[in-house]
């Protein structure tokens, strides 16, 4: 369909010099443009042509595209045409270039092959950092945001040991287990050669969510790669997180759930992994811990348990790294504090519970717990105390 260049929305002579990625990014910013619609459109036409046709509001006769757009495609086209008038691909591209973000369009050489082979591939992948790191073995370390200190410590340890064994940790950068896994991997990189982390986020790469994680975002982007299918400026809307979980599952060779409540985001990641035939493993937890209810349920379904990083490495068909005993760097607790340490245990315990277990009153317990916290044997959060394994921060 021949059109004068001047008619193309946001077009003009300058726009013709833009790469196809710029138009793909602009398409991703249209309202109601979900992953399925975007990849169908981009598969049918490269970015520039697709943008021109959508801006013109022409009907799309391609069977695959019509199927992806569904019955209400006319209304959708009208809406897109209105929205396209407000979007200037030149400005979109300029922001992307200024932010130092890479764009990989489905079908292009830069697009990660593992995603291209997926059943629901994202149409566009925005990345910050090096996308080449998506080449090596990858394990998703996921879990609840409301985790126990033990769960966070396990994720940290697992992330670190897997990264040190050359396995990239894939996670969602949420607070709780996700963040702990990546922090462990980053710590292992600080200690020596280790696989780079891969972070997959739900919002645009310039919208840090949760806000407190800005530092972790920077660290993952500079040491590994941060991926998102959401255009720049996209808010962390609810529907984006299940979509993000599907990319995590698609990228991983294996999914490890460290702690999960009975229903939650991690369980959605497990479903997505099952749809792709990717193995899921789970870390066993106490039957009394609500944060382990989901993971224990996974084990009951017959998934393999993860008790250390070697369990994961064996499942991946890699050589187990062997137990690397970490030097116990913490000072030995005072002899008098040892019964208190044993009474604290690996589950969060309140002062009253520790008091019942030891028979000590507060005047003895409080100083002992403070000494143990100081030397790193016990972690305190609010009024709850929990034992900490060696080597955790």
């Amino acid at each position, binding site marked *: 369909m021949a059109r004068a260049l001047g008619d193309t929305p946001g077009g003009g002579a300058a726009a013709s010099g833009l790469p196809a990625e710029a138009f793909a990014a602009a398409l991703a910013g249209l309202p109601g443009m979900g992953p399925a619609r975007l990849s169908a459109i981009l598969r049918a036409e490269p970015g520039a042509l697709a943008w021109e046709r959508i801006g013109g509001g022409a009907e799309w006769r391609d069977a695959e595209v019509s199927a992806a757009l569904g019955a209400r495609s006319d209304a959708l086209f009208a809406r897109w045409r209105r929205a396209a008038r407000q979007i200037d691909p030149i400005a979109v591209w300029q922001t992307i270039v200024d932010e130092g973000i890479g764009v990989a369009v489905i079908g292009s050489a830069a697009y990660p092959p593992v995603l291209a082979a997926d059943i629901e591939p994202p149409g566009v992948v925005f990345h910050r950092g090096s996308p080449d790191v998506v080449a090596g073995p990858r394990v998703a370390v996921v879990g609840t945001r409301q*985790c126990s*200190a033990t769960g966070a410590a396990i994720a940290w340890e697992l992330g670190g040991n897997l990264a040190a064994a050359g396995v990239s940790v894939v996670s969602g950068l949420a607070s709780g287990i996700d963040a702990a896994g990546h922090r462990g991997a980053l710590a292992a990189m600080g200690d020596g050669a280790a696989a780079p982390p891969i972070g997959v986020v739900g919002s645009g790469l310039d919208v840090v969510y949760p806000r407190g994680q800005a530092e972790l975002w920077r660290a993952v982007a500079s040491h590994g790669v941060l991926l998102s299918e959401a255009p720049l400026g996209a808010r962390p809307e609810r529907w984006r997180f299940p979509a993000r979980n599907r990319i995590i599952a698609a990228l991983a060779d294996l999914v490890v759930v460290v702690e999960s409540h009975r229903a939650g985001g991690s369980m959605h990641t497990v479903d997505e992994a099952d749809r792709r035939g990717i193995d899921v493993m789970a870390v066993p937890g106490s039957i009394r811990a609500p944060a382990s209810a989901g993971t224990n349920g996974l084990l009951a379904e017959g998934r393999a348990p993860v008790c250390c990083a070697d369990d994961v490495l064996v499942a991946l068909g890699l050589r187990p790294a062997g137990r690397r005993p970490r030097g116990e760097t913490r000072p030995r607790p005072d002899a008098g504090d040892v019964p208190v340490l044993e009474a604290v245990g690996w*589950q969060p315990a*309140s002062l*009253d*519970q520790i*008091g019942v277990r030891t028979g000590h009153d507060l*005047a003895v317990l409080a*100083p002992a717990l403070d000494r143990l916290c100081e030397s790193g044997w016990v972690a305190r959060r*609010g009024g709850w105390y929990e034992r900490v394994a060696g080597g955790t921060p």
Partner: protein
Amino acid sequence: MLASVASATLLGVEGRPVRVEVHVSKGLPGFTVVGLPDTTCREARDRVRAALMSSHLAWPNARVTVNLAPPGMRKVGAGLDLAIAVALLVASEQLPPTSCEGRAFVGELGLDGSVRAVPGALPLIDALADPEVVVPAGCAVEAQLIGRHVIRPVGRLEDLVSALVGRGPWPDPPEPVVLPPPAPGPDLADVRGQPAARFALEVAAAGGHHLLLVGPPGAGKTMLARRLAGLLPDLNPSQALETTCIHSAAGQPLPPGGLIRRPPLRAPHHGASAVSLVGGGSGSMQPGEVSLAHNGVLFLDEVGEFEPLVLDNLRQPLEEGVIRVARAAAKVTFPARVLLVGAMNPCPCGEGGPPGGCRCSGTARARYARRLSGPLLDRFDLRVEVGRPDVAELLDSSAGEATIEVAARVALARDAAAERNVSANVELPAWRLDDMAPLDRAATRLVERALRAGRLTGRGLGGVRRVARTIADLAGHSGPLGFEHVSTALALRADPLCLDWRVA
């Protein structure tokens, strides 16, 4: 004829003397009250008229002007009825002018000529300088408490008139009541387990530190809080009078002896409005719950469910011990020195005790936590997680320590505080902490680490030192504070998990 009689009216919780002047002159019959009476006070005209007629006295068929001096101050309530009636009788020459010399009158009149009790009799009589005060028989016990006046309780206007003209005797003053010991409140022995929370109660009572109890429903927060007032020492005479004045002014029922000798416990519902909590009101200035809890315990159950704006009204009274309420009509100061106890759930679902224990989202927790503003949270030096007691503890038949034993230790700790010229350690000013609560070396290091870790703020440090001082006092330790005292104080200051919602 002119007559002038002494009486008093209430302003907030204080009495103010009022002169009731009545002028009876020839002219068109009428009855005017001037001098800023409120509606109840203006209606005195009809009550007084009916009461005089029921008592076989004459209503002057003349022009009557009643002036309530000072005329610029608002007069509230029906307490001036008796004084108006007496002044009218003198001005209309039914009583001799001497009958109101050196004598003040307080009381409300019924249409049948009975003299009825008025709220706030205690502060009203306290404001009077006259040596003799005529009061309603219903207020006699309360009126005796001041002790400066000859109290003449009367039940009927007729009896008063016959006593004033010398026809009959004054009614007998009431028998001095033999004070029964105050009824004991709920006992601490009923609480099973909960050692940390029990100790926190003891420390709160001994040092006057505000206490926040955080725990799931059914953990016993309310049960614990209701036992705190029992641990506090008896009110001293001046405190007892202050507290009784407030309760009297608010029209609250007083104990049989008239005097409130035990620290009150007030537990307003979380639907309370700002005015009901701190006091005020459009017509008469009424004391709020904080003032009714003066010298006692203010218990805010489900503190997270109070309107945040209502709660923030407590910040100034908690700091200064008084509330200044200003309205267009008047400005009043209510005393409000309370021990604040708050109870709340750890998160919206209530089950979020231990980390990872509940499914409330971070935003839901944050929204819940924001209901308690930071400055208000800062006022709580004791923050204790209350868990559900273990089954073994619940079934344990051996009772916990009884209130009377704990109260004895609290009294000793209060004595130690009294030697520092404060009634409780919470009142120690910041500049005296270095003298009164010095830290030994190990304790200094512990505090330093807590400050570095962000677990403690500069303001919180003062609170921790005061609490540590109380803990040392309870243990009978008088020297510098050691590691164990500060460590225990820090353990009793656990930030509720919902306030630590940004979990990394």
